[in-house]
């Protein structure tokens, strides 16, 4: 039986058939109204609960991840802060060891200078010459009145006068000599004063530098305390710092990768002379793999060198090594780097030779002997050769510094990826929440649409039931035919 035959089952007229079918369908739909409403509600509730549960799970996962991210952020911030404080203490230690370790010597030196100056000062004291003891005797002789006209007395007095003159001159001479010596002593004291002044200024500078360092330590300690107490300011600062670090380090790493690619192109072709140009491994040319391995070994040596110098802290084992072993490692890694750089310079030279040979051969094959001669006779090729060799030698050392942005990038990436994961989880949670609500309202909408299809019988039912209170209707049927808001809104 075809669809058309079924359609025209009741009457030959299509219109009458349509009306009969419509009445039949509306009646059946009206009769099935309650079970259909329940089914739509049940399906909507099922979808709503499933989405709701997924949303709740994701929300919890997001909270856990946020908590974990905060822990990691705080731990990293704490570690970085400890590192900075440690560095500051190292600097203070250096200042104390370098400058203030000599303080006892300096103190002794200043004491010596002060003692010396004290002695010199004492020696430079002005001692007046003593009056001659026999002046009183001369005075007594001079008072002898009876003998004033006595020539003998006159001779004696002349003699005394002469002696006194001589004595006076001698005393004056000695006094001048003593004064000169005192001046000499005072003059000698001048550089001692200046020296002492300089030493004291140095001490002042050292102490000030120490005080500055202590202020920096105080600042770091303050920041460290904030991190320990997990304050919001500390979290925001650390988070912002991580993002900045991530992008800056990523940018520098991109530059480093560019440098590594240039390096690769410098040595890949001459590598064919060493390991062959056509053999492949896992689909890649062995020469290319060898060139890449050399570059990666250089990067690895750079990492070890930076680690040994305690500039980076990617490998705790190296950081925990004895100082003597660490310094040995610095020399070993540097020596390996130097050798690799020399090898690269050699390979760059080989590359230039091969390029020249290729150019000459190509020219002789394609353009004849004249151009071949021109191709092989380029006297200014030494510039490119030297440039290539220089790059081959320098780039390995430049790659050493990749370790610094790499460390920053790795540390920042953990935080940034964590934040990205939190954002994704939050978005998913929101989407599921939205879907749960959509399912709920879609259920309501379907119930309304269902009732819309059977609005005629519903209207008749309403008219029959008359003006009964709406609440009673609800109680009687368990479901209000014209009110789709009875579904529980659980959002």
């Amino acid at each position, binding site marked *: 039986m075809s669809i058309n035959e079924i359609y025209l089952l009741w009457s030959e007229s299509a219109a009458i058939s349509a009306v009969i079918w419509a009445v039949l369908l509306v009646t059946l739909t009206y009769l099935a109204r309650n079970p259909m409403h329940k089914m739509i509600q049940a399906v909507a509730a099922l979808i709503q609960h499933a989405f709701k549960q997924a949303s709740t799970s994701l929300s919890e996962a997001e909270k856990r991840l946020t908590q974990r991210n905060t822990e990691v952020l705080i731990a990293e911030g704490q570690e970085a802060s400890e590192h900075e404080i440690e560095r500051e203490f190292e600097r203070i230690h250096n200042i104390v060891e370098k400058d203030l370790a000599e303080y006892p010597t300096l103190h002794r030196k200043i004491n010596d200078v002060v003692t010396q100056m004290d002695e010199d000062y004492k020696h430079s004291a002005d001692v007046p010459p003593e009056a001659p003891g026999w002046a009183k005797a001369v005075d007594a002789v001079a008072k002898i009145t009876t003998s004033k006209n006595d020539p003998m007395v006159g001779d004696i007095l002349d003699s005394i006068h002469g002696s006194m003159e001589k004595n006076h001159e001698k005393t004056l001479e000695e006094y001048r000599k003593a004064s000169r010596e005192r001046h000499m002593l005072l003059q000698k004291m001048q550089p001692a004063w200046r020296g002492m002044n300089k030493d004291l200024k140095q001490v002042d500078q050292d102490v000030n530098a120490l005080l500055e360092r202590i202020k920096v330590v105080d600042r770091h300690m303050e920041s460290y305390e904030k991190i320990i107490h997990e304050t919001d300011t500390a979290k925001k600062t650390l988070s912002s710092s991580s993002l900045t670090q991530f992008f800056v380090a990523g940018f520098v*790493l991109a530059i480093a*990768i560019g440098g*590594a*690619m240039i390096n*690769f*192109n410098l040595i*890949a*072709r001459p590598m*064919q*002379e060493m*390991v*062959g*140009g*056509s*053999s*492949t491994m896992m*689909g*890649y*040319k062995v020469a*290319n*793999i060898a*060139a*890449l391995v050399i*570059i*990666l070994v250089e990067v690895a040596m750079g990492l070890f060198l930076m680690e040994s110098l305690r500039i980076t802290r*990617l490998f705790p084992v190296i950081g925990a090594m004895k100082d003597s072993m660490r310094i040995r490692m610095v020399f070993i890694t540097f020596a390996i780097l130097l050798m690799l750089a020399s090898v690269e310079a050699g390979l760059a030279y080989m590359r230039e*030779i*091969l390029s020249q*040979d*290729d150019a000459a*051969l*190509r020219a*002789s*094959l*394609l353009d004849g002997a004249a151009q071949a001669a021109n191709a092989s006779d380029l006297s200014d090729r030494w510039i490119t050769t030297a440039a290539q060799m220089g790059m081959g030698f320098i780039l390995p050392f430049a790659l050493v510094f990749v370790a610094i942005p*790499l460390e920053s*990038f*790795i540390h920042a*990436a*953990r935080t940034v990826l964590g934040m990205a994961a939190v954002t994704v989880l939050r978005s998913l949670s929101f989407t599921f929440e939205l879907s749960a609500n959509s399912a709920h309202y879609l259920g309501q909408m379907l119930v309304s649409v269902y009732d819309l299809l059977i609005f005629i019988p519903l209207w008749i039912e309403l008219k029959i039931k008359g003006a009964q209170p709406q609440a009673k209707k609800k109680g009687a049927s368990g479901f209000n035919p014209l009110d789709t808001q009875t579904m529980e809104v659980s959002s």
Partner: protein
Amino acid sequence: MKYLWIIFVSSLLLAGCDNQDHKEGPTTKGVYMLLDTSGTYTQELVKAQHLINFTLAKLNPGDTFAVARVDTASFSEKDIIAKVTFDDRPSIANRQKRQFREKVDAFVKSVKSSGYTDITGGILQAVEYLNEANVGKKTILIFSDLKEELKKGYVRDIPLQLQGFNVVALNVTKLRSDNIDPREYMDRLQKWEERVNAGEGTWKVVNDMERLESIILD
């Protein structure tokens, strides 16, 4: 986490540095060139010489190249004028290319025309040689007018086995008879195309030498 980053950066470098296609099997190329030395076609050998030089310039270390003449009985190693599998090292490969060119130059100077043209024998020899060389991409270049003339008693009605082979007819000159009736020329090309396709090879005709580069490098 740290090591994951290192692996990621290494992979990025390897992917970024290497721009070769990575296919299974050997990646080297093998080219076998047949030179028609019959009749007046020997005059075209100077063109062939340029073509050989061009091919030499385009081949890389590890590739295989052979040049053979087409004469009365071409299914023979004796007809191979020069053959080489280039060394892995570029400097040695360049030296081999120079030696190869010298051999070809010497041949072109001393070549004598043959009475018959056994192209099928040459192709059979090329197939055998390139299969032995175990190369990735196999190309047979036929520098000829494609008019096969066999000596009485020579059997060449043999189906060709050309799976994986590209057969390229180069510089297919028109004979005087072709000018009188171009259908002869077209029939000749059609016949060879059918034979190659029947052998599951691919067929191409290149009379413009500038297009050869894409064929060799493809």
